[in-house]
């Protein structure tokens, strides 16, 4: 295992989709390679930060209500257009 291959496997490593053998190789390499250890730690932290940089927000209820109103109007317009004889 070299540094280039090691860092190329970070994603799979974090997604736990590597087989035991490769994981062992990766960990053995990182034990002796500080650069890759730092790379993995900061790579992982980059993901964590991305998750926190703009936490998902909620749309306000009045916006949702307005949306629903528009949708329902469109919904019934479409239906009455499809079936001319509306009950």
């Amino acid at each position, binding site marked *: 295992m070299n*540094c280039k291959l090691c*860092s*190329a496997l970070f994603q799979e490593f974090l997604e736990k989709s590597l087989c035991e053998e490769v994981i062992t190789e990766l960990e053995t390499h990182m034990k002796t390679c500080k650069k890759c250890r730092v790379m993995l*730690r900061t790579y992982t932290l980059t993901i964590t*930060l991305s998750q926190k*940089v703009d936490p*998902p927000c909620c749309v306000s209820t009045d916006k949702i209500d307005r*949306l629903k109103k528009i949708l*329902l109007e469109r919904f*019934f317009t479409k239906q009455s257009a499809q079936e001319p004889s509306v009950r």
Partner: protein
Amino acid sequence: MSKKREIQSDAELVGEIKHGSSRAMEEVVRRYSNKVYNLAYHLTRDSAAAEEIMQDVFLTVIAKVGTLTNEAYFSTWLYRVTTNAAYGFLRKEKKFSDQTPVDDIDQEVQTSYDWSDLPDDVLLSEESKEVLRKSIDTLPEAMRTVVIMKDMEGLKNEEIAEALSISVPAVKSRLHRGRLILRELLSGYFSRKYTDSSGEDE
């Protein structure tokens, strides 16, 4: 007698919308409005645009749900419509970046400054968040979208692949390269800020 109010699958709801159920439509709005809004907001960084896109997306659902052949793919279809609408907005606003992808990040020159030990209040400061936000914005569009969908919105690789009409390996490769670039930019920022002894706070 089966209980009707069990949690319905997307496929069931879509089926009902096709048959004209406004209740199913409302349930879909309840289930997906925040997701659609957040994705649109993160792609455009514009709350008014995100709101408009959210409305357009659900109007598209009403108009085109009949053409959806595999109802199980409803959510990925929704994400695709959202992404396309966001692209449309960015293109109109000329904010669409068509930079050439940064393919060749040389691992050898990657910054090895270890900023993982920095305290949380530094890592999560408004300033470093702003640095990351701006860094994400500098990514080539194809990478930026994938990073936003995966790391900010928490979508699965398969969902992203489906929504962007690309393969799962392509998603992974864009994601990995995007993350490497972001890591590099953050490393540069943190090392400039915290290894420079000419700091102002004595």
